[in-house]
């Protein structure tokens, strides 16, 4: 019996295991998935929690029902991968051999990596994050109590999960304080290590204009060195005071990846960006946020890359070349407040562009432009995630990005 071992039952690991279970012969292939937690979190939902949206049971569900019959779910911490011996050691000492390994343990926020963030006495007092469930819930309380002062939204460094989420948080915060009637008493500041609101030029201009429209100040090229009391201090000694800091800590891959010698400086696994095969080992793939591919760390990139991976994997184990090639495709709804949203669609080579995104039955959605339909698309996606994506059912979205409906040279109205 051959064994496919998947580390991490998040978005990418769950989809890969469930879909390969249907494709691989049960008499020849065993599939095991290891995760440390018996709960699965819908991470895109975290964004809404600080503003009072979503009850816990809408974004947290038991892990086991999301795993297909015929896939063995093993709970445990991962201690190390011994790639030369093809085995994984769990914290309990248990050893799991494999024929092929999929690393899908994602990235996690690491506030401990910035001096003063976790250990400066302000963590969960005046400093919060919303990339963890606990952080998002704690921030909801802090926002409710916030009646005046300066709220700073901050990114430590790239890459981060869902790179638009800090912008969305800023838009929603503006909306939230407006609705409470205290927007004039709250100063909003967006602090980023990038040179603009976003990385890609067209989207950066559009999203930057949206910050301006909402009177959200932007501080760019800000690389934080440390936090002192209630101030961010950059490597070039700029200082930004805050009353409330909503930070996105450094995102890093799992520590066992580093201990196993499989990671780069951020514990991300270097892989071929088109096949997701490890550059170091021919029997290890890395899916989802855990790899070093230069696209969004986001569920949609995980989804589209898993589409390519499952086809490729069946060929690969037969000794055939992997003909599928992941193009870095990702798309995401960007919540912009007041019941509206934008849609971005892009890949390795094509930045987010304006236009229309065709989708039979429901679409088209407007790209890079605010609309009510995009807001509802974002909310509807939660159902799709639990009921279509995770079980590995087909979703009528092509894995590869299409230029249909996009305007390459369009000037966006600003």
């Amino acid at each position, binding site marked *: 019996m051959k064994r496919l071992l998947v580390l991490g039952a998040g978005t990418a690991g769950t989809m890969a295991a469930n879909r390969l279970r249907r494709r691989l012969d049960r008499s020849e292939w065993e599939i095991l998935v290891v995760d440390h937690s018996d709960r699965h979190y819908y991470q895109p939902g975290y964004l809404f929690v600080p503003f009072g949206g979503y009850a816990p049971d809408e974004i947290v569900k038991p892990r086991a029902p999301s795993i297909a019959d015929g896939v063995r779910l093993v709970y445990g911490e991962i201690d190390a991968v011994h790639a030369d011996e093809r085995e994984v050691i769990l914290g309990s000492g248990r050893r799991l051999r494999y024929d092929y390994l999929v690393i899908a343990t994602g990235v996690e926020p690491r506030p401990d990596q910035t001096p003063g963030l976790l250990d400066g006495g302000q963590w969960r007092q005046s400093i919060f994050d919303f990339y963890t469930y606990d952080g998002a819930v704690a921030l909801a309380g802090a926002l409710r109590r916030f009646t005046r002062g300066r709220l700073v939204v901050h990114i430590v*460094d*790239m*890459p981060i999960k869902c*790179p638009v989420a800090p912008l969305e948080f800023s838009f929603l915060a503006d909306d939230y304080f407006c609705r409470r009637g205290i927007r004039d008493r709250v100063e909003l500041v967006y602090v980023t290590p*990038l*040179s603009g609101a976003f*990385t*890609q030029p067209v989207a950066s201009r559009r999203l930057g204009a949206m910050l301006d429209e909402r009177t959200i100040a932007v501080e760019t*090229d800000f*690389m934080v*060195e440390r936090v002192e009391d209630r101030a961010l201090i950059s*490597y*070039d000694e700029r200082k930004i005071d805050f009353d409330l800091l909503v930070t996105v800590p450094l995102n890093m891959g799992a520590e066992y990846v580093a201990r196993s010698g499989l990671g*780069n*400086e*951020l514990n991300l696994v270097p892989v071929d960006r088109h096949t997701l095969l490890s550059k170091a080992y021919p029997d290890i793939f890395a899916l989802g946020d855990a790899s070093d591919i*230069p*696209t*969004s760390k986001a569920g949609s990139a995980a989804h589209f890359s898993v589409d390519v991976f499952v086809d490729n994997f069946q060929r690969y184990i037969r000794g055939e070349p992997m003909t599928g090639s992941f193009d870095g495709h*990702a798309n995401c709804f960007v919540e912009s407040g007041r019941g509206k949203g934008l849609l971005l669609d*892009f890949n390795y080579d094509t*930045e987010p562009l304006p236009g229309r995104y065709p989708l039979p039955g429901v679409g088209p959605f407007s790209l890079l432009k605010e609309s009510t339909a995009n807001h509802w698309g974002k909310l509807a996606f939660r159902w799709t995630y639990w009921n279509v994506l995770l079980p590995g059912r087909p979703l009528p979205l092509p894995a590869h990005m299409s230029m249909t409906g996009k305007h390459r040279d369009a000037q966006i109205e600003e």
Partner: protein
Amino acid sequence: MPVTTIAGREVHVDDEGFLTVYDEWDDDLAKQLAVQIGIDLTAEHWKAIRFLRADYVAQGETPTLRRVSVVGGIPTKDLFVLFPKKPAKKMAYIAGLPKPRGCV
């Protein structure tokens, strides 16, 4: 692809002036590129530039600030002193490498 003349010879650059052909670069060109953005190269600058050049060959992309600090062993604080305000971009510019990609 635009062609421009730096240090008396023609080199290929992108819209923002970053060199696009790895082998068109040499030390003399680096000095000229540095002058253009107001930097006088010292031994410390060269250490960073040599790391960038070598890492680019090994990895196929321009290293991030974090990588220069963690793998190259040059503290980020020093990089901000050597290449003020935008060290990642300035280093890449002088080292004749593509502008570091902003991860989407």
